[in-house]
Each structure stands twice: as C-alpha cells, then as structure tokens.
C-alpha cells in the first residue's frame, strides 16, 4: 500500500511525514522532542495543557502540536522566542497552583511536570502559590488520590472511562475550580473504582499513587518475633529494572532474590509456585465443568482488579468465575499451613509479604474471607515500585550482588508460571497442562503463540482428544466488557476465557514502575517469553514441588484440602455504576 506523504519545514528542517500526522509527530521525525503534559501516545488527543504550542507561519494563534495536523508546505517554529515565552508562562501558572513539595512527593524525579520545569529553567515565579486544599483520598487503601497535585490533564479520566470502562473518575466544576474527582461527589471507595491503578500510570504528576506501605514492611523486618517471608509475582522481574537503573527484562532472578534477602526478608519464595498450582486446580475445574455441565465459559480468577470489576459490573455472572483463589492468595493460605508445617515454624510468627505488580492485590489481601489459614493469609502487599524504593534505600548494587536461590517447598516454578505475567499467559499455561492431562500425550510444541500479544481480544480453538475447546483471552477491561456482554446475551461461543484487568496483563499492572505507554508493556512481554524459553520445565504439572504438595498435603486437585485453602467465593458489590 502506498502512503501519501506531506512535506513541511520544522525549525528549518525539511521533513516528510505521512498525511494526517500531527506537528508533534512531524517534530519527532525531525529530531525535535516537544514538551507535553496532557498528550498520551495511547489516548485521544486532548490539547488542553497547551504546553506543546508552536508557531505556524501565517497563523496568528499558536497551534497545539499534538492536535494540529500538518499541511503541505507548512512552516513551523517550535522554539521561537514567542513560543518559549508562552510555554514558560504556562509552566509558571501550573506551578503556582500545584504543591511544590517535590522533595517528599512520591513521584519526585519521575514527574513530567518537574522535568519540564527543570528543562525550561523556571527559577522564580511571579505568582503567589495557591493551593486547592483538598484532603488526600485513601478510602480504598490501595489507590490514593492527592487532588491538590492534579493538573487536570485528564489522562486518568480517559484511562478509567475508555480503557477500563469503570467510570469512577470525572471532571467537575469550572474555571480554576475545575477538578478531576471521583464521580457523584463520593470518595473513591464509594465509587465503582476497582483499584486497578491504571490511572497511576496515566498521571503525569503525583496526584494518584499506590497506598504506600514501606513503613509497615520496615517495622516487620525489625521485629525479631516475626519471620518475614515473601512471594514475588511473575511480572515483577521483567519490570523492576526500571526502578534500579537496569534495562527492561534484564534483572536476573538470582540477583532479585539476593536483593530481597538484603532488605531483611528471611525466606524468599515464589508466587510462580502457586501459579503452577493454579493451573492444576483451574485446569481440573474446567474439565469438571465441561464434563458435568457446569457454568461455561469459565473465567480465570487470578486478577483481583478483574474480580472487583466482575463483582461490580457483572454480578449476574459470578458463577462463571473459576473458584480458584489467585496465586497470591493460594500462596498466602499455604504459607501459613503447608509451608509452616514443612519448616516447623509457628504460623503465628509468619509475616507474609507479597511483591506484586498490582494495586488491587492490596485490596485482595485485605478481603475478610482471605483468612483460611486461620490467620490473615497475606499480611502485606508491596508493589514493584515500593520494592524498588526499598532496594534504593538499602543501597542495593545489582551489578555487584551475588545471586541467590529460592527457599524450599514453595520456590520452584515452570515456564508456564512465568508467563502468568502477560496477557494470554494463564491460558497458554492451562492449555499446556490440560492438553497433556486430557490426551495423555506429550505436547511437541508448548508454544501456543496464538494467545500471545497485545491484541485486545484473542481467540483460539484447541482440539483435546476430539473435544474442540474454544478459548478467548481479553486484557484491559474495555475488552473484557465486550466478552462479558456476549456472555450476558447468551451468545458466547467459548469454554474458557482468560481475563486480565490491565492492558498487557500483569506486566502493565497498576503497581509496576510508571508505564507511560503500551510500547513499554510490549517490551516487558518479550522479557516474559524469553524467561519462559529459558526454563528447564515449562509445564505446570511437571513442577516437582507441585507434585510434592499433592502427594504430601493436598492429595488431589479439587480435593477437600484444596477446597478449604485454594478456592473461594464471590459476592455482588452493589455499587452505583455509571
């Protein structure tokens, strides 16, 4: 196909870009990076911050580069005196209405506004600092809104309403009183917010962030009576590099484990172990539903943001959810029962910390039903970002640190568990196991590439010894909603559906290092599959520790103990939905 091109001049540089490109894109092609705040590569153009304004010859008004299409022969000046003067004035205006507490802001050194202020050399401000005086909203105990810091770019609103179709946030008021706020004047917890934390990635400043629990962690490791154990989710390793100055996917697992020991964790175990276990439980649950005429399609249940979404928006379809707890919660209940027994440790002394790419995991761990071990199953959830901060606080030098291995009983895992971190991964892991269980044959090729990648909804049909199993994978709740609407209408052709709340899956979770665009998510996904390839065992049912837990403790998938410790139930949330 032939793409027609437009020629123009930007700062004297002749550029040729595809028709319909914006000045912003053309400037990038010319090697000029323009400042942006409301612009987001994966979102609709808003053009409301005006920081990208440029001069276009023949136009009296400055034009926003993000929203202005190029025309043939256009002459653009991106850095004329007039432009720089306007941009600096705009920055001063934003700054004078924004708390200038950068030093103790959670986004210090990772803030788009701070970066621009530095780049534009804003040294003084003629305007008196005016604050809006809002209280912080920590009603969800997972996602915190600090409204005073909001610069009303509205990226979070689009994420919440368009990407996730949750509609918890809206724009209210007008003039200087305009604000992004939870809908209907409610606190965030009272809205339909599912605490996925995708708004955190959208925010250019520190107006939305995780409920930070570093102090609780430090208190636990300082307490001699507590035995601090940890699990790491599969998506953490590929992203943690962003927090400690290492390229995406480059952090070796052994160094990560060693780093966790440095910050005071006594035993380092892996969520991947229970991810493998999930495949055994969930795979068998699927087969049972198919054989016994249970509710189909069955939905995966690993993603707590997705569970919140289903309980809020599709309470009539809760029976379609797998009853399996998420790997985090399976780990939590087993750590204080099975693992404590094996280690001969009093479970009341165990302080179970999970390291998650996710803000919704904080909510999930605090669910009142998650105490099947007789204790709160997971005591604390730290996000990848919080762990990154701890590594920096402890001066962990990952170049020099000696790698370490996982501790016993719940530390071994397969490539099938690794890919849980990416969209399609749970499905692929399940297919690897279910295929072999049903057919009794060994898979020649374990790679089900059809369910991989950033496509919003992926479908496949797999032949299992004559049974055509139709599966679908959706990530990002706008995609999940399409699949769910189909189920609700009684028109779903699927047996099994994997849903992950966040775009790209857990690698793009709300607790990950600030993820500015989907391209970054795709990069992490590549890191996940590289790790899978490198695993000596790539099928969950071949995990030796999983085999052991069934022989020593659980006895069989879906058995009595499993039912008690590894499965859960769901309840409608009865929230106002918009």
């Amino acid at each position, binding site marked *: 196909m032939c793409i027609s091109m437009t020629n123009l001049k930007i700062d004297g540089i002749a550029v040729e870009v595809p028709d319909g490109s914006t000045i912003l894109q053309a400037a990038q092609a010319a090697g000029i990076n323009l400042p942006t705040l409301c612009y987001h590569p994966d979102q609709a*153009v808003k*053009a*409301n*911050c*005006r*920081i990208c*304004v440029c001069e276009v010859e023949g136009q*009296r*008004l*400055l034009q*926003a580069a993000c*929203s202005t*299409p190029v025309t043939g022969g256009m002459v653009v000046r991106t850095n004329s005196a*007039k432009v720089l*003067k*306007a941009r600096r*004035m*705009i920055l001063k*205006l*934003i700054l*004078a*209405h924004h708390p200038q507490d950068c030093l103790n802001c959670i986004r210090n050194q990772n803030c788009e506004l701070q970066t621009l202020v530095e780049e534009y050399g804003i040294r003084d401000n*003629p*305007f*008196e600092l*005016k604050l809006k005086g809002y209280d912080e909203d920590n009603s969800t105990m997972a996602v915190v809104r600090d409204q005073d810091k909001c*610069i*009303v770019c509205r990226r979070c609103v689009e994420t919440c309403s368009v990407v996730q179709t949750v509609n918890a946030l809206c*724009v209210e*008021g*007008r*003039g*200087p*009183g*305009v604000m992004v706020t939870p809908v209907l004047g409610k606190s965030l917890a009272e809205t339909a917010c599912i605490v996925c934390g995708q708004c955190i990635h959208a925010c250019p400043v520190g107006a939305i962030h995780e409920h930070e629990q570093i102090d609780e962690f430090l208190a636990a490791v300082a307490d001699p009576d507590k035995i601090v154990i940890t699990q790491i989710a599969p998506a953490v390793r590929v992203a943690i590099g962003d927090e400690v100055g290492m390229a995406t996917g480059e952090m070796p697992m052994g160094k990560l484990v060693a780093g966790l020991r440095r910050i005071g964790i006594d035993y380092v175990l892996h969520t991947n172990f229970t991810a493998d276990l999930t495949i055994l439980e969930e795979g068998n649950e699927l087969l049972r539903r198919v054989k016994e005429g249970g509710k189909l399609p069955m939905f995966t249940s690993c993603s707590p943001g997705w569970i919140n979404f289903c309980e809020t928006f599709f309470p009539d379809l809760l029976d379609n959810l797998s009853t399996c707890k998420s790997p985090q919660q399976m780990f939590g209940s087993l750590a204080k029962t099975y693992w404590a027994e094996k280690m001969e440790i009093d479970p009341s002394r165990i302080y179970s910390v999970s390291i998650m790419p996710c803000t919704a995991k904080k909510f999930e761990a605090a669910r009142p039903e998650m105490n099947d071990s007789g204790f709160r199953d997971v005591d604390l959830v730290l996000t990848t970002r919080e762990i990154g901060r701890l590594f920096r606080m402890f001066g962990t030098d990952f170049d020099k640190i000696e790698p370490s291995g996982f501790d016993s009983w719940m530390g071994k895992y397969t490539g099938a568990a690794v890919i849980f971190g990416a969209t399609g991964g749970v499905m692929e892991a399940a297919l690897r196991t279910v295929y072999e269980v049903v057919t009794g044959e060994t898979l020649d090729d374990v790679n089900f590439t059809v369910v991989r990648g950033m496509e919003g909804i992926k479908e496949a049909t797999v032949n299992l010894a004559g049974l055509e199993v139709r599966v679908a994978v959706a990530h990002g709740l706008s995609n999940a909603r399409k699949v769910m609407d189909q189920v609700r209408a009684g028109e779903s052709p699927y047996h099994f559906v994997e849903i992950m709340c966040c775009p790209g899956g857990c690698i793009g979770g709300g607790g990950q290092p600030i993820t500015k665009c989907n391209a970054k998510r795709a990069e992490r996904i590549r890191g996940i599959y590289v790790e899978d390839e490198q695993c000596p065992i790539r099928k969950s049912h071949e995990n030796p520790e999983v085999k052991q837990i069934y022989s020593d403790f659980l006895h069989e998938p879906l058995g009595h103990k499993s039912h008690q410790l590894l499965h859960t139930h769901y309840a409608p949330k009865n929230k106002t939905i918009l």
Partner: protein
Amino acid sequence: MPQELRIVLRNVGKIDALKIDEYLDAGGYKPLEKARSMPQEDLIREIKQSGLRGRGGAGFNTGQKLEFTFRAAGDQKYVICNADEGEPGTYKDRVIMQGDPQAVIEGMAICGYAVGATRGYIYCRAEYSYVADILKAAIAQAKEKGVLGDFEVEVCLGAGAYVCGEETALIESIEGRRGEPRCKPPYPPVSGLWGKPTVVANVETLANLPPIVEKGSEWFSGIGAPAYPGTRVLTLTGDVVNRIFIEAPTDTTVREVIYDFGGGIPGGKKFQSVQVGGNSGALIPESLLGAKIAFDAMAAVGATLGSGAVFVLDETRDLRDVVCRMARFFEQESCGKCTPCREGTMRIADICEKVSVGKGRAADLALLQEIGEMMAIACFCGLGQAAPTPVLTAIRHFDLLGGKGCA
C-alpha cells in the same frame, strides 16, 4: 443624522410573535418557498455573494459555511441556531426571538434546504426559558401550517455556561456532555453534532437570510460597509441617555451610535470609554470613536464587534473596578479545560483586584500584559483568547494604575 435600518427587526413590534398568520401576511415563508425552488448550489452562491458574515462574533462568511456543509458527506446533516446569548449587556437575539421567532425558524429552514439538513436545533440559554416557550409555540405553529416541509426544529436549553456560546462547546452540550470546546479541525461543517456535518449560525445571522433570499444578494451587499454588509442590531447599556436597542447599517460609527442613537452621556458628564461586543470586547477611548460598526473596521482599531453590545462608561467610572469585574467574570466562566485560560483568568483577576484597591505597581501591569498576550495566542478557544482583551486594552489606552482618564 443617521437613521435606523430594520432588516433583521423588520417585523419586531409590528406583528404578534405568536401568530404565524401575521408573519405570513408580512410575506413570511415566501423566501423559503423561493429558496426551495432554486438549486442548492445557486441558493448557496446567492447567500455567499450577499457577503453576509456571522453575527455571533467570528464574522465568517455564512454562504461559505453553508457551502462547506453542503459539500461534506453525511447521511444526516444538522442546522443549529446559536441562541446562547451570554455576553453581558447583549440582548439582541432575545429581541429577535421574542419579536419575530418565525424569521429565525425560516432562516434555519433555508439553511437546512441549502445544505441538505432535515433537522435543526435552537440552543437557547437557560436564562431565556420564557423565550424558549415562544420558540416552541412558533415551531408548533409552523409545523401545523406545514410551511417547514420535512424540516424538523427542536429547542434545547443550555445549563448556564457562557462557554457554550462557542459552537463546539454548544454541540457538546446538546450531546449531553460538559460544555467544553472541541479540537478543531474538524470544524462543524465537516463533523459537528453527533459527528455529522452541521451549520451553526447565530440568531441574527439566520434572521437575515429570508430578506436576502427575497431581495437578492446585490441588494444586501450594497448596504453598510462593503466588507461586512448589512446591519447590526446593537444594545446600548451603561452611561448612555437612551438605553435601547437599534438596528443600523454597518457603516455607522461608534460615535454615531453613542451620540445620535444613544443621545450621549447623561448628566452632563464626559465620555471615558466604550466597550463594544460584550465582556470580551476592547475598551475603546474617545480617539477611536470614528470606527465603524463593521468587523474589519473594529479589528483595525484593535477592537471587535462581537455580539453588538455597546457598554458606555462615563468619566466617573473607575476603570480599575471595571476591568476587575470583567476579569472575575472570565475566571468564573472559563470552562477550565485548558491551562492558560483556567489559570490565567484567575491570575488576571487576582492582579486586577490588587490594582483596584490601589496597590498596583508597574510590574503588575507588565505581568498582566505578559499573561494576557500569552492567553490571546495560546488558549484552546475564543473564550480564553479574548478574555484578556479588556485588561490589555485598558492598559494600552488608559492609565489603569490611576484608574481613569486617558494616558
């Protein structure tokens, strides 16, 4: 002595607005009939050649707007009458709608035929609910008479936001969202209401169409200023003897408006300034009163014709208070979407307040100028671009720190 020329107000005060028969007796709906007998291209060419330009403030050639909409592809097209008359001191659209609602509806139907639109909306400011009642009654009568053919008109009430006078914010409001301007392009003639090609025209513009169709483009283009032909309906407020509305040809000067139609300044006081075009208009000093009430003539003196409001200030008015009041208006009416307007209107108002209590310094004026000049070229829509005009022109033409008198 200049005389009024009533084209837009031809029937106002002469017929009963709620009796369509009286409008028909006065020749109403004959122009629509005539328009419908013409090929659409010819009708559009006629309107284009008349030189009629939008009376809402932007002054865009109406025929050209119709042509763009006509040429745009769309299974459905719309005509919107902008009756969100929100400029303080402006009530010309109300006078037209109250006195001759059928003229506006007929104008819409002419546009509808020209561009191929079968649906029209009148977006009426919520404060004019009693005008909306008149419009609804008039629409019902026109429907009953069958004069509109397949053209349907509906009245939409605004919700009190000044920014909804901006055509894309108005469209957002009709669609049920926050009244905020959209990115342009695409402009409404290509993608407007519900994403369809849409003509958005002011009440006064539409009321001009039936006489233009009836009497022809040559007749109209010969009236008033050649580059902005026709008349303007002006509303006189403030320190002027006759606080009235008039309709005058566009070659009338501001001085004639104030002194001949308005009867000058009351109480033997001296003139200080006049603001033409609403709150976002320039504060004009005596030396520029020779400007004509035409789009380009006003632009040539750094002012705008805008909504046709004429707000006169005598020598006793403290300009510091005047601009402060205007600045607070914009702070309140900014929709808050774009940074320069959201933050700039507030800062301008704050500094104006400082100046108004006598604490202003030269540096404050410099800062006002710096904010204002940035807003004028960097804001998202016309509201923010025009909001600093009173302050900027007060600084340019007057001794703002002193509060009054020419600099």
